[in-house]
């Protein structure tokens, strides 16, 4: 089994989140718990389903991650873009980081 992580979107604002070691949901990819085996992945998904039932997150799923020299990154382009929490283009109009103000 490849190394994995659980991701989802937060219910209230749709932001991309990752399940942490402490069973919390973080928006930082680097805070996500790395799951090395099937047992860990199953337990994490069970926790994710519980969180979905508690209106914290929606649509949890496992993603493959690559652990290399102490750093962790998603293997697919899609998940790398999600982990960055923004499109890969520069923000010519608007902002990627939040509201531009009232």
């Amino acid at each position, binding site marked *: 089994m490849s190394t994995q992580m659980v991701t989802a979107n937060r219910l*209230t604002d749709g932001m991309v989140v990752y399940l942490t070691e402490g069973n919390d949901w973080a928006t930082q990819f680097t805070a996500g718990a790395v799951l090395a085996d099937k047992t860990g992945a199953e337990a994490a998904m069970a926790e994710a389903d519980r969180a979905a039932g508690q209106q914290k997150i*929606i649509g949890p799923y496992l993603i493959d991650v690559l652990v290399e020299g102490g750093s962790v990154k998603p293997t697919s*382009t899609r998940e790398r873009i999600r982990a960055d929490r923004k499109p890969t*283009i520069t923000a010519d109009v608007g902002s990627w980081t939040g*509201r531009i103000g009232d």
Partner: protein
Amino acid sequence: MYRYDEFDATFVRERVKQFTGQVERRLAGEITEEQFRPLRLQNGLYLQLHAYMLRIAVPYGTLSSRQMRKLGFIARRFDRGFGHFTTRQNIQFNWPQLDEVPAILEHLAEVEMHAIQTSGNCIRNVTADHYAGVAVDEIEDPRVYAEIIRQWSTLHPEFAFLPRKFKIAVTGASSDRAAVRVHDIGLRMLKNEAGEAGFEVWVGGGLGRTPIVGTPIKSFVPKQHLLSYLEAVLRTYNQLGRRDNLYKARIKILVNATGAAEFGRLVEEEWQSIKDSALTLPAEEIERIRQYFALPDYESLPDWTPEFEASRKANPEFARWVQSNVKPHRAAGYAIVDISLKPEGGAPGDASADQMDIVADLADEYSFGEVRVSHHQNLVLPHVRKQDLFALWQRLSGAKLATANIGFITDIIACPGLDYCNLANARAIPVAQRIGRLFSDQKRLAEIGDLRLNISGCINACGHHHVAHIGILGVDKHGEEFYQVTLGGSSRDDASIGKIVGPSFSTEDIAGAVETIVNTYLAARTAESERFIDTYRRIGIDPFKEALYGNSQARRPAAE
């Protein structure tokens, strides 16, 4: 412009209240995501890659300045300062919060807008020619009929759960700018031998994984029978369309399987039984709706405008913009202005909140407060005095809204692609930007001339790549993005589906491949007036294949 009557206003208010309650119940855990999902989709709310996305309907692409200003306000107050205009003439906001969507919908209701019919297996927001009412080649304003179809289709109980989504486009002009031949139903206004206006009805067109140019099944439907005929088409589709396979559920698959002639016969049979029912449109009702779309009070002006001609002569940059972005208007002394949302390095269709405000202000000052959204993801000011064009151009230039590229290779339709979309396999916007930079030279753009290039990030083809002269489709190959190129598509009167030229190109190579294609065209065309599509149709795909893959020195194709 159309104004809500009391039924419209009450209906939209009630819908906002209903959805507000649904959001509250979802957040409180009283309904599950599975139960909530169809409800949010019926209100235009998707979950995308990074966040929720709210798609707002812009019926037949017509907006008042007040509505545009409200969109700017929403972009600023509830989103991240910008919005994305789409090929359905709609607008999408990419970062709304679920708990704030009811507030957004309340704001929209204040200006007679909503997000209904922008998702789900219903009749979607009806699209129309973006030059409606002002085009010189128009028989009648198609928005009158698009509005009638909107009223008929909104919450139509029989068609709320069709086999699949259903898109209708209407043109009232002899030249098709609404891509009617690649819609589930395309309505093309024409006159019969008696000189009466009616509709030629095309069915079964569409893009996606099975691109098909539609077929005309009825050469003339009188205006008063438009709704009964549409109802007959929809009823036939609703009864016979496949529901067992998502990918075979669109009407195009049914028409293909049944045969267009047989499908037309089935529709005719159904139509005869309902033709003179309550669906018959009284002439007075058509006239009542037409009043909403009455043209503004134009000044009586000569068509020759000396100050405009003088500015054009004195300023080559302005002249270039006029050449590509200004179109003839039916009223003497007036012009139609296309505002390009494809600046060099920008994301096609994106506009900032400030730009929306500026366009609203300019619409008030120069265009009787009216704006249009085109399915090419640009904006239009439909009623500008020629004598105001130079001042307008200067104001647009100051807001990065004066890119002179309408109809050129950099006027790219691109879907949001993998930068935003949950379904995408590859990015579309960065490819559009790379091509935009490659062809940024204005002189070269004009030399290349009329050339449509569209990009989709997956086979669902939201970027209309199949009907571009040069189409680019992003595909995923073992986790890497590659781009397949099609040539020879068109969405106009000569509608055609592009052909795949050969093996796909890597992200690094795709812009260069486009350049090779353009150079091949330039070398092969017989005259500057021979457009890319004409040259392609004359010489075929082989010279392009040869140029792209022909010998060892040619660009190396990526693995298939």
